[in-house]
């Protein structure tokens, strides 16, 4: 068993007149299997871009980042859908954005889908011990 330490920081000096400064961390017990860090050129068919297998009840901690480039390396501004298998859209990442979340307790996986063309994504997942 190993430890995964995620830390998120949100900062802004001008979103509000009072500065926003927020940081949170956690200590997660994780085990195999894990994927980290991988890259995928995501197409417009989510079912072809499954990055995390069906959970079969366990929990996975999933990280995804939109790299801002397509499969040829050109800069793109198209969005990247984060979906559960079966085309259930959770949300969209714009170029450069990322997400981190637990997925599990059910029988669905995670898939990615480009809004058009291709989008290169980086991802990792860790299995909750």
């Amino acid at each position, binding site marked *: 068993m*190993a*430890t*995964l*330490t*995620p*830390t*998120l*920081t*949100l*900062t*802004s*000096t*001008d*979103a*509000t007149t009072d500065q*926003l400064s*927020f940081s*949170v961390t*956690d*200590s*997660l017990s*994780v085990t*195999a299997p*894990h994927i*980290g*860090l991988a890259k995928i050129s995501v197409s417009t068919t989510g079912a072809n871009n499954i990055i995390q297998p069906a959970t079969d009840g366990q*929990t*996975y901690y999933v*990280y995804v*980042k939109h790299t801002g480039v397509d499969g040829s390396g050109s800069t793109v*501004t198209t*969005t990247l859908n*984060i979906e*559960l298998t*079966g085309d*259930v*859209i*959770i*949300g*969209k*990442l*714009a170029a*450069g*954005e*990322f*997400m*981190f*979340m*637990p*997925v*599990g*307790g*059910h029988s*669905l996986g995670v898939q990615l889908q480009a809004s058009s063309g291709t989008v290169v994504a980086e991802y*990792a997942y*860790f299995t*909750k011990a």
Partner: protein
Amino acid sequence: MATTTATLNLSSDMLSSPINITASSILMKAGVTEGLELIEMGRGTIAEADGSKTAEFGLPTALGADKAAKLFLVNKATDPTYYIDIDLHDTNIGRLYAGDWMFIPWGMNDTASELVIEAEPSGATCPYEFVLLQEPQTLVAHS
């Protein structure tokens, strides 16, 4: 323009060589280079006895269609067996165990994209905190 920067660091001792991943981005409105300006934050408590509840933050409607939003949600329970089950409408996403958190893009497109939360197992009570960053929604005329 508001500039809010989110930074995530993941580190682990799972392998003999340490894993260290860092990502940082400025949170933008959809399709433009303007920052998200609306920040909603707060806390609440949900008990297992409450059953499944629509989270009272965000409350997506058609006004949020194709707009950007980011949600941070943390389970502040201290009992490691207590978790918050999170559904997107009627599809289960996953569980936040005590102390765990998530940071996700949230497609707040319509009322069917609401988050539904439920404390588990039997007898559990889970305090939670959230930060929702989103675009201001266009107000509609008074009817």
